[in-house]
């Protein structure tokens, strides 16, 4: 018997693995993009130098308030025109839309990764007027650049000053909040052995930045508030002699970014996200060495990571987080948002993220959501993710401001049609691979036919009937363990 077209994977195993790890999930257009390149590594290399992403950028027009200046955003919030939480919700939905439609998936994944390391919740009172600006000017341009530049941009940004109280940190009265998290979360980490005095010194170097939180959120730098005088952090002396301390702060941040302890922490976090919850130490060491040798070059680190044998060996060792699952499900079902009005499908899938356990940009503490995927595998999350899959698998319900393929385009033009082939055909379309034995059996159980069933009767050929069969088959595919792993 001739194979039904579209029942064999088009990408080799390694390419599938690379794509699962560095994108928001399989999609036909992505697969075609990979195939246009010499091999998966060539595709990855191209992804590391993203161009303009027309489709992703176009979604910004759906959220006009995201272009408001900080002053306007605050004015709107104060006047009850548009609340801080709405600004936050817009940023969440905009980011999710980008991740669903973007061509340069690796860039979106890295924006996600750094946003989580340098986490500022969206819609938070002291930072929301600047939060979109933080995303657009601090995180995105540096997500595939150097960590040194990223760290400077993030730590000195008004959103960070507002969130971690640096706007209240002055030479007269030191506020340790940002100075401590800079050491603990963003650079050298606790194991570097810094003292409480080091924390205070770190905070002193950060004095001078101003944000009129609760007034008009105007941001600036006031040398009169900057602490002048030599300080020591982890044994390193900073003269800090100038009234304007920004040059000294940049030197301090560059020094922190280049510390081996920072290299080890960034490398481990990258390996936990992209290899496994407990990555091989040799991979962490290799990435850390590249980080230092390359002057904190993020692309160089990613190249080292994917070339390490530990990466290749780690297929399916990570579970998708709730957000990753929601996004992969949209892409598997080829659901494409076309707008984000009230009650739109974008609202639905954004809501599903929180309902299944991980509302984006809402983690309540500065350490970001856990990168360990087993944290998200609670039974409650499993039940809700299965349920959300069932909704998204439905091939005939109407979506508001989103498209999905017509049922006719999902059915192979072959007759009679063996059930097992149909399941593989759907699985390849949705996940890029054939269905497992259990998934085929599961689909057959849901349909209440034997796995050997062949659709051959005239009424079985009706679109409405096949639409329902496809809904059940797609439910089985999305709810299988391998579809929840990456």
């Amino acid at each position, binding site marked *: 018997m001739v194979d039904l077209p579209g029942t064999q994977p088009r990408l080799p195993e390694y390419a599938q693995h690379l794509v699962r790890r560095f994108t928001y999930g399989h999609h036909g257009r992505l697969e075609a993009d990979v195939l246009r390149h010499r091999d998966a590594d060539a595709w990855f290399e191209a992804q590391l130098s993203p161009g303009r992403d027309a489709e992703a950028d176009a979604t910004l027009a759906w959220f006009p308030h995201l272009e408001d200046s900080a002053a306007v955003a605050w004015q709107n919030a104060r006047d009850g025109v548009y609340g801080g939480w709405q600004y936050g919700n817009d940023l969440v939905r905009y980011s999710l839309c980008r991740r669903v439609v973007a061509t340069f998936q690796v860039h979106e994944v890295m924006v996600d990764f750094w946003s989580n390391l340098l986490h500022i919740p969206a819609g938070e009172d002291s930072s929301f007027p600047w939060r979109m600006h933080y995303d657009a000017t601090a995180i995105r341009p540096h997500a595939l650049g150097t960590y040194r530049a990223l760290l400077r941009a993030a730590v000195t940004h008004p959103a960070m000053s507002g969130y971690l*109280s640096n706007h*209240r*940190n*002055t030479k*007269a*009265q*030191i*506020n*340790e*909040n940002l100075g*401590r998290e800079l050491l*603990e*979360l963003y650079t050298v980490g*606790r194991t570097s052995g810094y003292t*409480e005095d080091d*924390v205070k010194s770190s905070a002193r170097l950060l004095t001078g930045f101003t944000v009129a939180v609760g007034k008009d959120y105007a941001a600036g730098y006031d040398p009169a508030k900057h602490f002048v005088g030599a300080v020591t952090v982890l044994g390193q002396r900073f003269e800090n002699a100038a009234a304007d301390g920004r040059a000294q702060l940049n030197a301090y941040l560059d020094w922190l970014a280049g510390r081996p302890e920072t290299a080890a922490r960034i490398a481990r976090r990258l390996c936990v996200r992209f290899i496994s919850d407990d990555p091989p130490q040799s991979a962490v060491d290799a990435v850390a060495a590249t980080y230092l040798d390359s002057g904190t070059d993020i692309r160089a680190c990613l190249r080292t990571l994917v070339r390490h044998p530990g990466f290749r060996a780690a297929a399916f060792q990570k*579970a998708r987080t*709730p957000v990753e699952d929601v996004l992969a499900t949209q892409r598997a079902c080829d659901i494409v948002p076309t707008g984000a009005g009230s009650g739109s499908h974008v609202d639905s899938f954004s809501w599903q993220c929180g*309902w*299944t*356990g*991980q509302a984006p940009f809402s983690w*309540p*503490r500065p*350490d970001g*959501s*856990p990168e360990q995927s*087993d*944290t*998200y*595998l*609670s*039974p*409650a*999350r*499993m*039940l*809700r993710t*299965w*349920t959300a*899959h*069932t909704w998204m698998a439905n091939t005939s319900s109407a979506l508001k401001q989103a498209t999905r393929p017509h049922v006719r385009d999902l059915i192979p033009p072959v007759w009679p049609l063996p059930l097992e082939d149909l399941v593989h055909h759907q699985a390849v379309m949705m996940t890029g691979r054939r269905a497992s034995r*259990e*998934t085929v*059996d*599961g689909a057959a*159980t*849901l349909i*209440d036919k034997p796995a050997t069933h062949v659709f051959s009767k005239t009424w079985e050929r009706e679109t409405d009937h096949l639409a329902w069969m496809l809904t059940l088959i797609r*439910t*089985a595919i999305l*709810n*299988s*363990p391998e579809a*929840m*792993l990456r």
Partner: protein
Amino acid sequence: MTDGHDASCADYGVTRRNLLKSAGLIGMAGVSTAMFGDVLTSTAYGATTGNILVVLSLRGGADGMSMMVPHAEQAYYAARPSIAVEKGRLFRPDATFGLHPSFAPLADLWDSGRMAAIHAVGLPTPNRSHFEAMELVEDADPGSSERIGWLNRVIGCFTSTDVFDGIQVGSTVMPTSLIGPEPSFATSDFTSLSAPWADHATLGPRMRSVLSNMYRDAGTVIGRAGQEAIALDRRTGTISAEEKKGPQNGAVYPQYNELGEALASSAALIRAGVGVRAIAVDFGGWDHHVDISWRISHQIDQMSKSIAAFLTDLGPHASRVTIVTLSEFGRRLGQNGAAGLDHGYGNAVFALGAGVQGGYYANWPTLATGKQIDGDLAVTTDYRSVLAEILQARFPEVGVGTVFPGLSRTSLGFMSPY
């Protein structure tokens, strides 16, 4: 008084997973799933009269000296010129301590001797990192690299090993204290916790059978999560039905408050009688680097109202429930430049409800200059001693030495002996 090391609980080595492992059942298709289901249903009713521990995590580092104010100390007022709680506003003060006035909604509980306030509690050595300190508090096994939380070890001591033994309410992300080999789960509430199409006469059973088959391999992380989800699905109906009835006995929770919502769900869970033994509730928002006065006042008010409503809501079940608050560290003695407090050390802990002998407790180190640790309140009582005292009084089957290995503990006497 030092009790030394307690004996380990006898059944700790015979948990369900070990049973399965020794019987060679893990990973064997079908069998472990079926056995899992049997264990769950057979223990569902047996444990309904057991005592219950509710752990309220005040994440962010709650300021103990604003909550349980050492008003006899001049150093307290000197270090906090604009944010100290004035003597005249204190609630139920004695010669040494007084509660923040926002504790007023707990007046009945305090006056009936069911609320203990315990000061100068914390980790044995200072740690001013939120994340590391919380990790240490919840793991509570210094020197061990195994990622098993203390609540998970408590659950391990119960004869039933049931997914309902240990529950995190309010977030679907597992806290460190619950992570470990014993089944437990995290949820925001108990609605919509069923398998897809659960109410459908034909598709419901088919879906359950498909999921049971797909997730039958308990040897994988995802397989185990799937099996526990299927076990959960069988019983959440009872709980969500109870939750839909709303608060009972005239209890009124504060509106739009996440703690109130989580405790309302917890009350329904307890009333439903499915056999829960430990509930962990996260209540964040205590990291008051800026303008602490009005912020903490609001937090304490919401917490007090939520706890008061919870105990009312529980009705007769309240006699089984003990609540304890935990925070990763206290805050500095001296205020910072933003009318707030940076990360400090010694802290106050509150125990409320069943078995508690109310009042103020502390091996008070004083705030004298020589007694401070790097400018902060010292710790004279290991937080694990506080938890151990509650466990010993309310859960005699739990071996304190298993839950807190190597702990040399001191008793404060704030619990009635079992």
